[in-house]
C-alpha cells in the first residue's frame, strides 16, 4: 500500500479539466431558478439520487462521476444519503407505478428551495417503456422537473455539464 500511495504523490492526476457548460441546460435553467434560490444555493449542490425505475444504466454513469477522471466533488457537488440534506433530486427511470409513492415521499422530504433533474431518455417521457401498464411515463408526470439531461444513458461528461450549468445559474446573481 505504501508504494501505491507513494506513486500517487508523483504521478500526474487522472482528473481532467472541467467541461464547458451545456448551453441547452443553461437555457432551460434560466427560466426555472428564482433569485432567492440562487442566493441560497451558493456554490455547492447536494444531490439525492432516486432510481424511479431505471435499467441501472444511468446509475452506472452517475457513479462514474465520482471516479478520478471526473472527480465531481471538486465542483462542490456531492451525493447525500438523505433527501433531507439535498438541494437537488436527480431522478432516473420512466417512474414505475410501484415507485410513484416513494418518489413523491422523497420529493416531499426534500427541503425548499429544491430542484429536480430528470436524467436519461426514459425520465423525460417514459422512453421505450412509455405506454406500459406499469409506468407513469416520465418524472414530470409525478413531480415538477427543472432540468432534463438526455441520453441513454448520458455519459458522465454530459451529466457534469448539466449539473455545472445548474451551479453557474445559481451563482450568477448570488
Amino acid at each position: 500500500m505504501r508504494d501505491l500511495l507513494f506513486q500517487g504523490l508523483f504521478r500526474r492526476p487522472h482528473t481532467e479539466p472541467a467541461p464547458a457548460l451545456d448551453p441547452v441546460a443553461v437555457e432551460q435553467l434560466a427560466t426555472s431558478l428564482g433569485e432567492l434560490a440562487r442566493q441560497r444555493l451558493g456554490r455547492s449542490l447536494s444531490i439525492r439520487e432516486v432510481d424511479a425505475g431505471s435499467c441501472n444504466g444511468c446509475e452506472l454513469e452517475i457513479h462514474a462521476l465520482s471516479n478520478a477522471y471526473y472527480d465531481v466533488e471538486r465542483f462542490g457537488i456531492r451525493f447525500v444519503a438523505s433527501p433531507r440534506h439535498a438541494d437537488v433530486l436527480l431522478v432516473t427511470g420512466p417512474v414505475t407505478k410501484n415507485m410513484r409513492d416513494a418518489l413523491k415521499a422523497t420529493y416531499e422530504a426534500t427541503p425548499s428551495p429544491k430542484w429536480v433533474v430528470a436524467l436519461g431518455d426514459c425520465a423525460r417521457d417514459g422512453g421505450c417503456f412509455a405506454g406500459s401498464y406499469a409506468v407513469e411515463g416520465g418524472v414530470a408526470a409525478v413531480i415538477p422537473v427543472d432540468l432534463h439531461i438526455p441520453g441513454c444513458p448520458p455519459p458522465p461528461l454530459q451529466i457534469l455539464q448539466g449539473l455545472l450549468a445548474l451551479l453557474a445559474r445559481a451563482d450568477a446573481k448570488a
Partner: protein
Amino acid sequence: MPSLSDLKREGLLAPQQRPWPRIIVDEVLWSGAATSVAERRMTLLALWGEAGAVHMALLEQATAEVAVISLNCPSGRFPSVGAQHPPALRLERSLHDLFGLEPVGSPDSRPWLDHGQWGVTAPLGANTPSTPQPPYPFLPVDGAGLHQVAVGPVHAGIIEPGHFRFTASGETVVRLEQRLGYVHKGIEGLMSGASLQQGVKLAGRVSGDSTVAYSYAFSLAAEAALELAVPPRAVWLRALLAELERLANHLGDIGAICNDAAFALMLAHCGVLRENVLRAAAIAFGHRLMRDLIVPGGVRRDLGADGRKAIEAALVSIRQQLPALVELYDETASLQDRTVGTGVVSAELVAQYGAGGFVGRGSGRAFDARRQLCYPPYDQLRFEVPVLTEGDVNARVWVRIREVEQSMALIDQLLDNLPAGELLAPLPAIAADGEGIAVVEGFRGDILVWLRLAAGAIARCHLRDPSWFQWPLLEAAIEGNIVADFPLCNKSFNCSYSGPDL
C-alpha cells in the same frame, strides 16, 4: 422421477422450437419434472407463463442438455413447482401477478411484482380493474429481544430501489426478508406485438449493466427461431463486446466491494481501470456501455484500427495496475478481516437454487454457460472457469479477480483471430413463425431468453435474469452476520433489481 429423455418420450414435441426442444406435458409429468428438479436430477433454469399455459426450462447438468416443458392450463390453475422446490416460489408469484394463473398447492400466495399500484390485475392475462390490496404481509418473527429495521425502497447510496426488512437480535441479523418489484416496467407486456428491432432495444434495457449480454441472448433466441446464420465476424465481435462488459463490471465491483468495507483506495484505483475500459468501448463502438450494438442478424458496428488500439491500451493499463491492487487486497489485514468468512453461502444452497455467476462459482457450482453450453465462438476459445468453495465475500471477490484475468486473455484471442467479412445477415423477408431459446453468460451469471414469433413479430418473450436465483441466497448469506456487514454482503452479490423486476 422423469429424466429429460423420459419427458421427451412421454410428452408431445412442440413444432418449431429451436435449438432445444419444447415438450408439451400433462399435469402428472409436470409434477414429476418438479420432483426431479427438487431432487437435483435437473436444474430449474426458468419458469414463466403466458395466457393459458406455463413453461419451465430445465437443464440436465450431466448431459448439458436443455429443454422446455409446457403445461396447458385452460382452467387457469397448474400444480405448483414451488411446493416441491422453493427456488420456484418467486417465479410462480410473479407469473400469478402477471397472468392470473394459480399455482395449486403453493405455500406462498402473496403477490410479488403486483404492489397494488397498476390499476389492473393480471395485466397480461384477464387484465381486469383491480381492487385495493391489503398491506403486504411480511413473514412473522417471534422471539425475545428481536427488533426490526426496515430499509428502502429508496436507499442511501446510488443504487436501485428495493425493500429489505431485517430482524435483528442486538447487532446480529436473525432474518432478512426482501421485497422487490419496485422497478417493474412491464417489459414482457411491451414485448408482445413488438417488432424484432423494438424487442432487441427493450432487451438491452432490462438490466443496464448487462445490456450486451441481454441483447446477445435476445438476438441468439431470435436467430434460432428464424434459423438465421450469423456472419463469423459478428459472432466473434459479440464475444468481444460481452467480455468487455464483463471486464468493466468486475473491475468496478471489486473496487466497490472494498469500498463497502471502508477501503476507498481500491475503489479509486479500480474505478480508473473501469473507466479505461468504458472509454475504449466508446472509441471502439461509439457507446460506453456498448448499448444497441448486438441485433438479430449480427452486430451494427465494426471494429476499426482506432478501436482495436484503444482496447489494447485499456488492457495494458489493467495489466500494469491490477497485480499491485490484487496484492493490496490480499495483504491488507483490516480488509481481509471484513471479507473472509463473511456472508457465507453453502454449496448445498447454490446447487438447489442453480445459482449462476460468481455467486454459484464462489460456492463450488462450476456452471458457466460459455463452457457447459459452449455457444460459438467460445467453443473455439481457450479459457478457464474459476471455481472456489469457501462461499464467502472473499471467494466471490477472488472469482471475479480470476475472471478479469480470463476475460483479458479471451479479448487477446478474439482480437488476434477476428475473422474478416460481413457484420449483419439480413432478416428473412417472409414474416415467419417460430420459437427460439438462448442462454448467454453475462457478468452476473446465465441469462435466458425465450421468444415466440408470429408473422415476424414477437408474440411472447420471456427474459430470465440470473438474479432470480441469487437474491434468495443473499437472505441466507446475511443470517448470523451483523447488520453493518449487509452492504458488504449485498455488494458481493450485486444482484440486479431491474433484471428480475422486469
